[in-house]
Structures are given as structure tokens and as C-alpha cells.
């Protein structure tokens, strides 16, 4: 089930008329919010399904292992990196934050003061964090892939 199309004689992806242009911001935002949606919209259905399944599975595994979502904490630069990776999960991140914090999410000083869930004493805590970071970063890479496809720089 190859999705490969539009290659020139040298085997490189064809440069479309839009190559070098900008990818629609809305499409990139959709891809970030819902893993795989951008690929689906662009007709890359196989990739869309696989990316969605892999990212959601990684996120659920991270939550099931009592991993903690990255939340920015003042005075802790690494927490910002963790937050960056986790925010990559898009709507999954928002739903988990809502699940953990409830309606206090609306009244707290976002992004500070929120709970990321998880249990640091749990056996799977570090593993859970790794799964949460990995799934978020994979989704961000998927956003870049959609950007390349939309610009015609990649098939």
C-alpha cells in the first residue's frame, strides 16, 4: 500500500507549484491538535491512521504508567522542555489537563499552578514520562511532515 507518488525520474519528489510557499497555518494547527488529521486531509490516509494510532497509544501508555504531563514551573528550565514535548500531544494534552485539574484549570494562573497528574512514587513514573514526551515529539514531527507535504517539498 504505497503512498509514494509524484516522483521524477531521479526518484526525488516532484516540486509542485506551491513548493517554497507556506503551509496553511490552520492545517498545521489541526495536525497538532488531532494527531493524523493533517495527513488525512492531504489524502495520506495510511500515514494518518498509523500516526494517530501510534501517538494515541504512546500517550495512553504514558498516562497508564502514572507519567506526569510537563507543566512549566518557574525556576525550573527543564520543566519548560518537558512542557514543550508534552504540549505536542495537542488535544490529548488539554484533555488530560482537564481530567487532572478539573474546572480549577479555568481559574488557575495558566500555565503555572497546574497539576500534571501522575505519581512520582509509582514504579512506571519515569517510563510514563518518557512515553508522554515521545508521543508529543512524534506529533510535532508529524506537523513538520504535513508542512512539507502541503508546500510540495515532499510527497
Amino acid at each position: 500500500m504505497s503512498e509514494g507518488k509524484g516522483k521524477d525520474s531521479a526518484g526525488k519528489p516532484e516540486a509542485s507549484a506551491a513548493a517554497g510557499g507556506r503551509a496553511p497555518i490552520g492545517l498545521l494547527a489541526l495536525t497538532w491538535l488531532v494527531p493524523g488529521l493533517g495527513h488525512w486531509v492531504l489524502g495520506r490516509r495510511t500515514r494518518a491512521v498509523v500516526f494517530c494510532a501510534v501517538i494515541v497509544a504512546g500517550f495512553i501508555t504514558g498516562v497508564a504508567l502514572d507519567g506526569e504531563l510537563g507543566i512549566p514551573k518557574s525556576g525550573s528550565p527543564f520543566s519548560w522542555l518537558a512542557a514543550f514535548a508534552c504540549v505536542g500531544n495537542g488535544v490529548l494534552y488539554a484533555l488530560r489537563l482537564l481530567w487532572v485539574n478539573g474546572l480549577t484549570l479555568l481559574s488557575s494562573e495558566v500555565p503555572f499552578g497546574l497539576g500534571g497528574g501522575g505519581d512520582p512514587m509509582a514504579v512506571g513514573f519515569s517510563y510514563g514520562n518518557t512515553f508522554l514526551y515521545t508521543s508529543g515529539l512524534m506529533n510535532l514531527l508529524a506537523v513538520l511532515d504535513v508542512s512539507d507535504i502541503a508546500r510540495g517539498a515532499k510527497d
Partner: protein
Amino acid sequence: MDHFFLLVWHALLVSTFFAFLWRREPRDRVRLFAKSFLLMVGGGIALGWLMYPFP
């Protein structure tokens, strides 16, 4: 879930993702998947043994 299972599960997810991200032909995808999966699992086990003597 034991540590080895989590190692394999993580390698499976990441290898699948990159196989579909970086390759377009099914055969190339299978090859990249197998290579990265084996490297991650084998590398994890090797690193585990290398760290074994250290406290």
C-alpha cells in the same frame, strides 16, 4: 508491565512512526522498521548489561 515489555513497546511505536515518516515504499518501510526496532531493543539490552557492574 515489566521493563523489557516497555522497552519493546516503546521501540515498536517509535520504529513504526519513523518507518512511515521517512519511507514511502512498503518494502523500505519494513526494512527501516526492522533495523531501528532491532537497534533500539538490542541497544537497550546491551546498555543494560554494560551498566550492570556499576552500582
